[in-house]
């Protein structure tokens, strides 16, 4: 399977508004609570984004650029380990699609694509997204996140 064909897709339905889900993806104060990292960016197309640790080091575990931003509807960014962002073979992309499934329920689809087939990154994100997105749903629906790490 080629890089262009290698992707991971996860769909979850969350009892929340699209505004709340959007904020949970882009506000570092919220991402800290369910993702144990601060997602830092101004989220403008072309801007850098960083997935920073919250242990005080500020070290980034994932870096990339914002590709597309349609507030409350679609967010696309590139995704690479620090030091690998200049190697096209190592850079993947993540797309979030938010849709109102019914009033008060959001269908969130995460598509992580352009992955290097068989890579540690592919295995890692396939394990990671279900944890992160389960925890996001729990946080938005109950007000507290689970301890997954």
């Amino acid at each position, binding site marked *: 399977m080629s890089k262009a064909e290698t992707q991971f897709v*996860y769909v979850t339905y969350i*009892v929340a508004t699209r505004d709340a889900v959007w904020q949970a993806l882009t506000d570092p104060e919220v991402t800290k609570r369910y993702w144990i990292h601060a997602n830092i960016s101004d989220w403008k197309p072309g801007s850098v984004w960083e997935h920073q640790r919250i242990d005080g080091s500020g070290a980034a575990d994932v870096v990339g650029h914002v590709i597309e931003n349609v507030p409350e509807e679609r967010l696309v960014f590139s995704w690479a380990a620090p030091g690998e962002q200049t190697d096209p073979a190592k850079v993947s992309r993540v797309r979030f699609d938010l849709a109102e499934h019914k009033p008060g*329920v959001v269908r969130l689809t995460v598509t992580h694509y352009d992955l290097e087939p068989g890579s540690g990154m592919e295995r890692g994100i396939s394990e990671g997204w*279900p944890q992160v997105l389960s925890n996001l749903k729990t946080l938005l629906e*109950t007000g507290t996140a*689970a301890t*997954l790490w």
Partner: protein
Amino acid sequence: MSTSQFIYVTYIRTTPQKLWDALTNPEFQKQYWFGMHQESEWKAGSPWKLLFSDGRVADAGEVLESDPPRRLVLSWQNQFKPELTAEGHARCVYDIEADGDVVRLTITHSIDREGAKLIEAVSGGWPRILSSLKSLLETGTPIPSSHQGAGA
């Protein structure tokens, strides 16, 4: 042999026993599974079926393995769409594993056939069913369903 497969993992703040009960209790199922429910004794060799709220059978098969509250394996054949029935028996595996203060549930639905329509159909249903189950167990309220029998 070519296989079609759908895998979905979700983490739920509950216990393995409560999750097992939620997966096998018909009254509980009706709350999160598009109003549908299942009938079975949940023992290896027992028949099982998934019924629409009007009593029609949606899918049916046999319990292949039952190890409460850890693992349940079903054979699964669609009974209401001829083109899916013709694909024969799929296999649906539930794996339940405690992980800290949450439970990891993995659904693996597969059939020995490339490009199976059944797997395409259940791929749309499982995220809705399991999102609703997670909400129900964590908040006491499922995701409201305006649909009946959207499963395959």
